[in-house]
């Protein structure tokens, strides 16, 4: 049985229907745990060692995220936690009524770091609605661009955003006893990264000055060059179109891509060695790191990178082409794979707004009671959702975030590059045949070919637990995995060129009738879906669900905390501090950053009459107001 909580059952042929005899099948039995707020207030009033810790903004994340927690500094545990997306992104509203093709370019502006993933998700949603699929070479080239974008994204997370949490500068300030051990602790991967001790690695991770940090900063350029070769422009690609890609791809394009890719194959070898060394050391010297950021292994991923022989853009065949992707879709609950079927994954999705700054919409008639293959859909499903922003004051008991609470089968699931690797590794018989990546059920075994460095066999083993370290470690292996997906697609591109099959796009017509579409995709940091409905050639609804919406979600109507909140509440306080004022909250921050938060882009936001933009506060210390500040007209 796929669903435990939703009222959907399957017959022997696998056809789904609503469970018989249920009067109000998608009724929400609300359980807001109202007693908790009172208990926390009482704890704060009675105990001087229990403090409210508000981190606003959480730095080193993309966009606007704030985090409120109540920490028992004496017993070193977190009593309560609230994740807050502090700004609203109204792409759903901006896109309504537009030509569907605009969505590719407008939705890619949702993010300044990974706009390509939105463009791809949007293109697939449109292709489903239009009834057009790219030719094989179009799919392959899209994959090349997508892999390159991830090759930019993974080192960014590992060295520029989360990495500094494990640097000499941070560890020395929060846990000097660990840094002291690191100075003499031998690093096993010296042959790959050149550092003799963990202390040397931690120095190399120092922000702005460390060699690993500076190298990663430079590598962002190389990865961007790869994306631009096939996408024309980055971070907002210009060549992704319905039915394929509008770039001219020649042998020279592929050769230039290959040159850079082989550099990244070597870089991946070094990345794995660095992070295995750091994380194995931390487990060894401080076993409580196993508990930092820990939560149940409940994961979701939609897969990524279509197989060029399988993808036909139809919803009817989504279960088949989804399972042939280079990243296998799936839902994992309590460490067990529940499904890899995109129809079932889609039907299990709901989005709640009980603790979010939106109005309820599900009390209206449901536009789509089923999906196009007859699978029942919840009124809370994205095809039935209406975005109704309602700014108001913050209340932990009521509403406190602009993020919604997406759930699968009414359970809290998280997305991440690690979720993609997990579902891919565990779905043993799904992976396309290839010479470099093998899913074993327990691991992803990878062969990194020789470039400047010798060939390297490596294996990402499904960990026994899901915590901050394992999220980050999987991200390190994701660089190798991504580079090998790129290599598989590059070889396929050469093969198609050799056969003369070089077409990268197909013509299409914009349908005038009512259509639905969904882009099942993934960002560098995990799950991404774009659901659309259209009629008379224009969008009637557009819903984007990002990995950080999943992960940063506030409490749901069933009283279940979101992934950040749950992970932080499970986190022990390892940090050392002499007095409460010295407390930096590094364990909380490590937990949150391990998810690689990418809050919705804070630039082009629409909220009815209220538009919120990022505050600009350019330093004016060099200004001489009297001489140089001149009202318009005064210069003439």
């Amino acid at each position, binding site marked *: 049985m796929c669903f435990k909580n939703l009222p959907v059952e399957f017959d022997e042929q696998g056809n789904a229907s609503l469970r018989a005899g249920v009067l109000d099948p998608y009724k929400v039995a609300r359980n807001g745990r109202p007693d908790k707020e009172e208990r926390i207030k009482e704890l704060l009033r009675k105990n001087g060692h229990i403090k409210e810790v508000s981190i606003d903004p959480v730095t080193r*994340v993309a966009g606007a995220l704030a985090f409120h927690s109540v920490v028992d500094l004496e017993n070193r545990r977190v009593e309560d936690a609230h994740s807050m997306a502090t700004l609203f992104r109204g792409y759903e509203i901006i896109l309504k009524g537009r030509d569907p093709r605009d969505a590719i370019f407008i939705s890619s502006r949702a993010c300044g770091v990974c706009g390509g993933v939105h463009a791809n998700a949007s293109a697939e949603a449109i292709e489903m609605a239009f009834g057009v699929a790219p030719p094989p070479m179009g799919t392959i080239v899209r994959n090349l661009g997508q892999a390159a974008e991830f090759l930019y994204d993974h080192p960014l997370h590992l060295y520029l955003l989360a990495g500094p949490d494990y640097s000499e500068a941070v560890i020395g300030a929060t846990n000097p006893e660990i840094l002291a051990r690191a100075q003499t602790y031998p690093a096993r991967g010296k042959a790959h990264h050149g550092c003799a001790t963990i202390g040397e690695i931690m120095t190399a991770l120092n*922000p702005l000055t460390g060699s690993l940090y500076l190298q990663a900063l430079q590598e962002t350029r190389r990865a961007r060059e790869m994306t631009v070769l096939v996408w024309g422009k980055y971070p907002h690609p210009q060549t992704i179109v319905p039915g394929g890609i509008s770039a001219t791809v020649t042998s020279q394009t592929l050769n230039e891509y290959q040159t850079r890719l082989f550099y990244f194959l070597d870089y991946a070898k070094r990345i794995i060695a660095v992070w295995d060394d750091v994380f194995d050391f931390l487990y060894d010297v401080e076993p409580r790191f196993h508990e930092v950021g820990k939560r149940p292994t409940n994961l979701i991923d939609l897969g990524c990178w279509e197989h060029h022989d399988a993808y036909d853009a139809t919803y009817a065949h989504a279960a088949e082409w989804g399972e042939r992707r280079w990243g296998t879709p799936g839902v994992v609950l309590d460490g067990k794979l529940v499904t890899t079927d995109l129809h079932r994954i889609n039907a299990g999705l709901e989005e709640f707004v009980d603790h979010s700054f939106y109005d309820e919409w599900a009390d209206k008639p449901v536009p789509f009671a089923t999906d196009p293959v007859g699978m029942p859909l919840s009124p809370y499903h994205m095809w039935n959702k209406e975005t109704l922003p309602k700014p108001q004051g913050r209340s932990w008991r009521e509403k406190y975030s602009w993020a919604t609470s997406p759930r699968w089968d009414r359970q809290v699931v998280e997305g991440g590059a690690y979720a993609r690797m997990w579902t891919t590794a565990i779905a043993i018989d799904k992976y396309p045949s290839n010479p470099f990546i093998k899913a074993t059920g327990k691991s992803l075994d990878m062969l990194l070919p020789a470039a400047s460095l010798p060939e390297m066999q490596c294996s990402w083993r499904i960990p026994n637990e899901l915590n901050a370290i394992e999220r980050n470690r999987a991200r390190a292996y994701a660089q190798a995995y991504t580079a090998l997906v790129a290599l598989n697609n590059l070889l396929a591109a050469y093969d198609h060129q050799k056969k003369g099959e070089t077409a990268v796009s197909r013509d299409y017509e914009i349908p005038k009738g009512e259509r639905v579409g969904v882009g099942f995709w993934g960002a560098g940091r995990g799950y991404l879906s774009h659901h659309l409905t259209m009629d008379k050639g224009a969008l009637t609804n557009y819903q984007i669900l990002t990995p950080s919406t999943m992960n940063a979600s506030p409490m749901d109507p069933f009283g279940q905390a979101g992934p950040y909140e749950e992970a932080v509440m499970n986190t022990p306080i390892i940090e050392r501090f002499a007095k409460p004022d010295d407390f930096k909250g590094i364990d909380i921050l490590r937990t949150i950053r391990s998810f690689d938060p990418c809050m919705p882009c804070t630039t082009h936001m629409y909220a009815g009459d209220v*538009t919120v933009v990022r505050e600009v506060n350019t330093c004016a210390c*060099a200004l001489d107001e009297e001489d140089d500040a001149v*009202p*318009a007209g005064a210069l003439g």
Partner: protein
Amino acid sequence: MPSRPVPSAERGRALVGGVGYTNLRDGSAGPLLAERLAGRLGPDVDVEDLSYSPIDVMFLLQRRPTYARAVFVGAVSRGAPPGTIRVSRWDPEPEPADAVQARVAEAVSGVISLENLLRITGHFGALPPEVTLVEIEPENETWGEGVTPTMERAMGEVAALLRGEALDAARV
């Protein structure tokens, strides 16, 4: 007031960069000015829309022969009357490393900001020796195309300033 103009050929190549978000009405003044002035400030002046990650602007500056001067233009809200133009020499005190790192994190995750651009490129030594900042106070930064008449007038004055003074605004 600006000092006596010095022929640009004696002063080396210059860069004029517009910075801002597109489709954000007055907030788009920087990129719009770059578009209007491109190729119109003489052979020794490169005019560019630098409305992208400051890290990539840093790579651009590192890749090119060193500019003698640069002028960065954008809309910045400081609570002054809309359309107010502020011209200043960019020569601030260095920031602590933590603050620069926070800016790098914003830059690599997509934030476009005049201040981040100047701070980050400055920290990594990529700025020309002489840098001028031109800020215009915006009136309306809501989502959409086009700027307000106030901003249009101010942009015209900034364009005239940059054309007429051959970048001697850098010498205020």
